[in-house]
């Protein structure tokens, strides 16, 4: 049984408190939950290639950097379901591929639901593609 408390929502627009460092923004969720994310943060920051921006203030980071930090924030929630709205919207191809690869890896241990306009990026063995038609989900592996 999955409840809404098991779902992490990653919004398309990366909202950050601009005057705070990215790392401080990532720590905000620890105010509301007892999480110790230090190791996991380092691991996935490295995977997303944003280790170098963690100490920077959010308002000096680029859109792509913030978008990846936004995904990292969702991952750090460590919930059973990761619901991500257009994770590659602000990213170039190279970074889009990095993100898609990471999400595919994560899907080995949790459910990762992604909305995207670039389905080809997410083509891997365990991906199920769904298309919305008339408000109803239809499985459609021919999208790509």
């Amino acid at each position, binding site marked *: 049984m999955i409840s809404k408390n098991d779902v992490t*929502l990653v*919004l398309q*627009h990366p*909202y950050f*408190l601009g*005057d*705070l460092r990215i790392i*401080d923004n990532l*720590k*905000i*969720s*620890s*105010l*509301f*939950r007892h999480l110790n994310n230090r190791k996991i943060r380092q691991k996935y920051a490295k995977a997303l290639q944003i280790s170098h921006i963690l100490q920077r203030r959010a308002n000096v980071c680029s859109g792509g950097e913030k978008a990846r930090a936004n995904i990292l*924030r969702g991952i750090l*929630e460590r919930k059973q379901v990761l619901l991500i709205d257009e994770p590659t919207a602000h990213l170039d191809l190279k970074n889009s591929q990095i993100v898609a690869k990471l999400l595919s890896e994560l899907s080995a241990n949790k459910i990762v639901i992604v909305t995207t306009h670039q389905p080809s990026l997410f083509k891997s063995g365990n991906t199920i593609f769904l298309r919305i038609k008339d408000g109803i989900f239809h499985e459609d592996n021919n999208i790509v």
Partner: protein
Amino acid sequence: MKIITLFKVISNLYKRNIKKNRLMVIFMIFTNITLMLFLLFFSSSETLGATLAQSYLEHLSVDVALYESQPTNNPLINVKSYRRPSIDYLNSMMKVTDTFIIRPDYSPLLHEKEIMVLGKEIPNVLITIIGESTNEIGVNRAFYNELNKLVSINDDEILLHFYVKTTIFIDDEEVLIDYYNQFPITYIYDEPTYFSVPKLYISQNIIDATLGNIFLKPGLTLNNYLLNLNPEHELSNYRFKCHFKSTAQKETFMHIVKQVSNDERGIEVSGDHINKIDSFNALYDYLSILMKLFLVFVIIGSIVIYVVIAHTALLTILRQMALFAVLGASKRHLYEIYLFLIIINFLLSAVSFLLLPSLLPVISFILHKLLGVYVVLKLNYTMLVVMLSANLLLLIILITIIFLINMRRPLLYLLIDD
């Protein structure tokens, strides 16, 4: 670590809305100062009257008369008849209050006085007999100022010429009183400036030794004559003058007076200082009503401004609140953050209460300028705590309502465009 992150987040949100927060602090400081002034006003009522009363040199001397209500056709009109209490009656009170001096009232005779300095008559002078055992004669500042208008005087040498010329009837026999004396003025007393009239202070000792000791007939001094008059005789002025030894003794006396007096009959205690304190208290009561009304307006104004500022402060951080909700913050967490932000303003504005000790001498100075007396104001700290707590409680209630109305669905605010 959590504390540091919390501090950073709160600081960020506070700075984000710094203009409104500053406005809120300024307004809260204004409200606090207004509340402090109210507090001082209401606290002063306990000490001001007492201090003012004791600032009259003759505050231990009073006139005592017995009164009885006369029935009239109109129930709204209360006519009182007066007579002097008997010495025995006053002696019986002394069993409770300890002994005090009883003397006849010289006012009817002193009405016929004439007071001259350097050939100029000083009009409308109130002769004030005080019970202190002193042989000095003084005047108040109002007398001195009046004198200064009439003649050019040297403070060291004010010689006062005192005349009393009148006739009284003793057993249908006309007796002329033609009294003259001269007294050097040895002190000028700074009486409260509130309704001050020119006064000449003469001690009871001097009256006894001079005017009271003149012989009307062989073997009959004026003092003895006035003391033994019929209680309803006009020349008795229907009263005795009583001089107390201390404030405590006077208070005991006044307590007895209150106990034995009612609408029908009782004792009336009068005196220039008593009339003035009564009128001052009436004015103070009137001011107190005005102040309470003003306080109500300040409270209503505070509510309106708190609501406006607290609401706009919340609107400014709606998207951040929504972000926190995404990050797992419950509504309770969001409420705590919002409360924390507003409480910072409350705490910053509470610093204004540190001004209170320095405000006391300022108020004392103003009162000194207005009333001419130094008043040591005592603060009612319980009332201060009540006011602060009520202010905080009001604020918490308001921001809780604002929060509940605005934060029903915090996530919706993420839809707002930049």
